[in-house]
């Protein structure tokens, strides 16, 4: 039996590109971003109509005035975005990036304060320690899932809390790290801080470069290696991967470990950033609050369609509009508008792809009716696109609990 679609002429290169999944993900993202800003504009116009235009301009372009800061603040969420996105590829929803991030911070801080290492090596050790901290915390949901069949979402949520309490306790009980009169950690020695990029009045540092390199590395792992092949196969259909002799349990544990390591690195990058003030540094305040950057990572991953390269852009974009949002406060707007914009963008991007094709096929139908001639040739574009989408939207049936994820590079 032959699909009639195969009868249509070979698509041109451009056609192929515009019909590729990557492209529709891109246009979908654009559309959601557009809607997000429309929403923002409406809110601003309601709050203070006179300034809405200037406010919106700030949101859109303000970040360009503070490019270094855009990259600086993009780094941690880029890493947590990778932590979420990478696990997503395997069909795992790593909602525990927050805990892994906190653990990464703690390990980095510990090495920063407690180990006396030479310049140039110290910060590297701290970064690696942070990575290990996140890795360990990421392994836990992996182990629970692989060995005990406990859903990773639940484990992650629980260990976000456990990690937060634990780290706060460990820090507060360590006199070398904690300054009680300031309710936060002491200043890190300069040797433990990341090398700055030397941009004036900005904490921008080498970690953004590392983060981008790591993202590229993950991309290669996912798409070019046998491990990535196994991982995505498992994400799509874990039964088939078992059938093909892949070690599902090992892969789950490994994936969560790597995801945790990413979040841990994010924490390390955040806490080890150099300060613009001589002798100062980042500090950690143990106040029993779950790290927001962990959850922001979810947004970044979703906006970047879980593709490491997409995540780079998503992180920079979100950081960009956040900086713009801060600047918009000069016009009296509350920076919280940005949180709303981001949420709206994610919400729409969840179904923008489908919306894309619905709109297209709607017009196709309209067009067809007007023609009134029986369609001998089934509408290729829309059907192809929607077929593609359907195939994307059908998650492999996961026998146990919840979270279905898919997505293709």
């Amino acid at each position: 039996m032959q699909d009639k679609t195969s009868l249509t002429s070979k698509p041109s290169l451009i056609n192929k590109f515009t019909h590729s999944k990557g492209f529709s993900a891109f246009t979908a993202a654009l559309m959601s971003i557009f809607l997000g800003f429309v929403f923002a504009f409406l809110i601003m116009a309601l709050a203070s109509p006179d300034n809405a235009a200037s406010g919106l301009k700030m949101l859109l372009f303000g970040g360009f005035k503070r490019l270094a800061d855009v990259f600086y603040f993009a780094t941690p969420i880029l890493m947590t975005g990778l932590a979420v996105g990478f696990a997503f590829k395997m069909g795992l929803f790593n909602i525990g990036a927050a805990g892994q991030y906190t653990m990464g911070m703690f390990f980095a801080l510990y090495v920063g304060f407690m180990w006396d290492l030479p310049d140039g090596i110290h910060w590297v050790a701290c970064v690696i320690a942070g990575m290990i901290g996140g890795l360990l915390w990421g392994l836990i949901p992996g182990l629970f899932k692989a060995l005990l069949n406990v859903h990773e979402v639940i484990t992650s949520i629980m260990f976000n809390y456990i990690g937060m309490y634990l780290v706060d306790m460990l820090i507060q009980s360590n006199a070398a790290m904690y300054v009680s009169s300031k309710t936060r950690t002491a200043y890190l020695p300069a040797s433990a801080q990341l090398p700055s990029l030397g941009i004036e009045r900005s904490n921008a540092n080498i970690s953004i470069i590392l983060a981008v390199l790591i993202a590229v590395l993950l991309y290669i792992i996912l798409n070019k290696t046998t491990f990535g092949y196994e991982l995505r196969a498992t994400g799509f259909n874990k039964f088939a991967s078992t059938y093909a002799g892949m070690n599902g349990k090992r892969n789950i544990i490994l994936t969560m470990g790597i995801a945790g390591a990413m979040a841990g690195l994010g924490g390390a990058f955040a806490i080890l950033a150099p300060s613009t003030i001589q002798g100062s540094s980042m500090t950690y305040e143990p106040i029993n609050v779950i790290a927001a950057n962990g959850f922001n990572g979810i947004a970044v991953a979703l906006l970047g369609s879980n593709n490491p390269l997409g995540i780079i852009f998503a992180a920079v974009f979100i950081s960009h509009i956040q900086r713009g949002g801060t600047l918009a406060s000069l016009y009296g707007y509350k920076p919280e508008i940005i949180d709303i914009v981001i949420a709206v963008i994610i919400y729409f991007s969840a179904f923008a792809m489908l919306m894309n094709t619905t709109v297209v096929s709607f017009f196709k139908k309209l067009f067809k009716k007007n023609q009134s001639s029986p369609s001998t040739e089934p509408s290729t574009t829309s059907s192809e696109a929607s077929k593609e989408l359907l195939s994307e939207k059908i998650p492999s049936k996961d026998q146990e609990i919840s979270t279905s994820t898919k997505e293709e590079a």
Partner: protein
Amino acid sequence: MDTVYYLVQNTLPVAIPLLLVALGGMFSERSGIINIALEGIMLFGAFFGCLFVYFIQGSSLNPQYILLLGMAVAALAGIIFSLLLSLATVTMKADQTISGTALNMLVPGMILLYAKMFFNSDGITTNVNFYLRKVPFLGDLPVIGKLFFQNTYITVYIGFLFLIIAAIIFYKTRFGLRLRACGEHPHAADSVGINVYVMRYAGVSMSGFLGGMGGFFYAVGVMNSNINGHTGVAGFGFLALAVMIFGQWKPFQILLAALFFAFLRTLAYSIALIPFLHDLNINQTFYKMLPYLATMVVLAFTSQKSRAPKAEGIPYDKSQR
């Protein structure tokens, strides 16, 4: 004995929001929609409930009536908000976790923005006291009265009432049967003429109803009828999700799970009252971790048999086979 009364009296106001929200999650998931957005729904309901209380607090209305009205407002708000989830996941067939996560992100920002714009604050602070020192007559009963009818909130009774109603709807009605069919095998439901989309809207809306109400009960029973964009509902929506799974998507098991969790949580803060625990002199942080650790341990033992609704997480598409 006083300590026992105290523990019970304080466990219930924490357990009830968990119970209600987890029941909401149950309706949603048994209809086939994973509801990660419970956290956001709770917060949204709590916000409107508190906002209502804020505007009405000057009036001479009896606080318990205000509470009931606020509850209705919160439930309604929850339903409306949950429609955003149904719209995305049922009509637009979007990924359920993604939509839910987006909605979770939306609410705190919205509350902060609103509160800052109109109250110069991070949230809404109200001034009505809903506390019930003693329920008339019942509060005087021996033991039972002290356990359940003193130093409490009427939310506790409302919570139990809704548990019963939920269980009846779930197991004894045509609607419940159809709802469960949709979460298990939507194509089968469709083939006997059940409108899967409608049922899923209904399931999600019920989670909005219970979630919004649960959020408001959290604000009343735990946060003194205040709500704040930063602390939100302190992850109770997520915990409710865990409670729901722990309770195996079944109403009475969910009740047990909620009580279990709430009790450990209450215990963690009441160590000072329990001499033998107090004397152990363990860092209180360990007790704070206890509910989470205990939940993990229980799940570790029970999860092998865990059985989620089969079709949950999968958008229903008629033409899909």
